[in-house]
């Protein structure tokens, strides 16, 4: 017998289409990575291997600006990820383990709607909101906006995980003399943890590389890494941007890998 994954290779042109997709997806990234090591200010002509642009990133004239932007980005991403993960965990518990309530389906829609609203619309709306209540734009306004739009991203893996945990585990714990609080702390939370961690990492990545909303709600002079990079690119693309991009790519890749192993660990536990 031939299983489904074997059979799909037999479709004519399947291999070619798959290769084309991979090339379109990854060729630009690979070119950026290669040219970040180019020993030349040109972004198209290869002159030899060097770390000069990485030095430029850390010591060059723009180093201070990028450093500040990176610190801002990390502070915002970590705080936004922690807060939105906590909110997402609470709402997943209420939606999946709580009593049924009126408007439950609508609440589910409201939690996930931001995923479908065009980001530019959210950006404009958030800006108008901050302006109308007279909220000072700065790092705090960015943080608040990030917390809000990270919630659905954190919610999805957490809810998926919670849905996969049969509620008999909580019943067993209650049966064995655990209070509701102990049941959550000792049983449900540890079992949800892989979902919570991947929710956290997803929220972190989404916050770290957000540009549109950040650009709208940031105050003058406050930069995150994506807005700083955009600002630098406006004055012409230099290979140091490629170096920063490569660094970000490596960081993201590491995080995604960690998330993958965490979720696999969770699956094995089941």
């Amino acid at each position, binding site marked *: 017998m031939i299983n489904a994954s074997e059979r799909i290779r037999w479709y004519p042109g399947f291999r070619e289409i798959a290769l084309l997709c991979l090339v379109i997806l990854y060729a630009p990234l690979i070119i950026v990575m290669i040219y970040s090591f180019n020993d030349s200010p040109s972004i198209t002509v290869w002159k030899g291997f060097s770390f000069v642009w990485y030095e430029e990133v850390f010591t060059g004239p723009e180093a201070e600006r990028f450093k500040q932007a990176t610190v801002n980005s990390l502070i915002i991403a970590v705080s936004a990820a922690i807060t939105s993960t906590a909110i997402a965990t609470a709402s997943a518990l209420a939606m999946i383990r709580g009593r049924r309530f009126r408007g439950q389906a609508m609440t589910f829609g409201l939690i996930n709607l931001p995923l479908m609203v065009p980001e530019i619309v959210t950006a404009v709306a958030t800006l108008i909101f901050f302006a109308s209540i007279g909220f000072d734009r700065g790092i705090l306004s960015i943080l608040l906006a990030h917390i809000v739009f990270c919630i659905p991203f954190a919610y999805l893996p957490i809810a998926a995980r919670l849905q996969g945990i*049969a509620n*008999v*585990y909580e*019943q*067993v*714990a*209650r*049966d*064995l*003399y*655990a*209070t509701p609080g*102990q049941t959550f702390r000792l*049983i449900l939370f*540890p*079992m949800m943890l892989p979902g919570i961690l991947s929710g956290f990492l997803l929220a972190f990545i989404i916050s770290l590389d957000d540009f549109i909303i950040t650009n709208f709600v940031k105050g003058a002079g406050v930069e995150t890494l994506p807005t700083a990079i955009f600002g630098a690119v406006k004055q012409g693309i230099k290979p140091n941007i490629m170096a920063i991009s490569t660094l970000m790519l490596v960081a993201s890749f590491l995080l995604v890998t960690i998330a993958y192993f965490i979720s696999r660990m969770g699956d*094995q*536990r*089941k």
Partner: protein
Amino acid sequence: MNTNKSFPSPAIDIVSVTKIYPHRTHPVTALNDISFAIKDNEFFTLLGPSGCGKTTLLRMIGGFEGITKGQIQLYGEDISTLQPNQRPINTVFQQYALFPHFTVFENVAFGLKRLGRDQAFIKTQTESMLELIRMAEFADRKPNQLSGGQQQRVALARALAPQPKVLLLDEPLSALDLKLRQAMREELKDIQKKTGITFIFVTHDQEEALTMSDRIAVMSNGEVQQIGTATDIYDHPVNHFVANFIGEANILKAKVSKSDKNSITAILAANGGKVTITSDVSMKKGQNISVMIRPERIQIGKISRAKSALNGVIQGISYLGTDTQLQVILDDGESIIARQQNSIDAGTPLNKGDKVSVTIPQHALRVLAD
């Protein structure tokens, strides 16, 4: 059995318990005014088809379902309003639900820790439980490193470790394969005897119920149909439901011709034969009744002239290993099932279409209520 440990009140007393699941248009009555008592140190089984209310009742005793009306008492004390963690009753759930992030030892020790027992006691008690289920060498394993049967035993040890007054078992064997299930029956019965804890076992498997239980409550449609020992229920079913649910039953129509104190004489509709059946229920003369006989009590032979015998034709033969099952259509059109043991000296084999005589021993007949 254990008379010196007897309690004045039963282990569990179910007092006029009703459970209604509310619904705007179709409220469902899961249990309809049920009352019975489960004795101390008893292996008690709730048996019935799915949807009969047996699991609902078990969950109510465990504290996982509210009671609409009535009361559940544990050794004379009303426990109806207590939370599951406040009841000295533990449950073995159908899904083993071992905590995946704990080792076998930590799983078994969980209840004792929550009860705040001291470390030394927790250790010895947990170890003796693992000893009891022959899993001592698996103490440090995680649940996903165990087979289904091993997980089942750990779930049992986990529920037994806090020394509950009553242990509830919700179809705990249904996920195991046949051989393992049969072995676990013995083991459960053995553990119940060793620990002296009252077991309340829920199953839809009549064989399980018959082989393990001290007493069985047969349930259907939210009501208890009959409570008794395995022999009571198989041999003296009170009504059609019990007769048909436990084993197989042939139901014959008859008319009462005489009703005495301890017996009824009735005329079988099939051949007009007169039978006398022991029964303490008095009937009116002329009343139509149903009489029941188990397939293995019926004797099938080549055609005979004996008056008491019914005549029929073999319609079907199924070979079942130890037995052969015969389906016979009687002369009046009624169909009955008979079982014959496949012994070496069974004589000439019967074939489909053979005319046979069906002998029904009077002492094996039972009168059924509707």
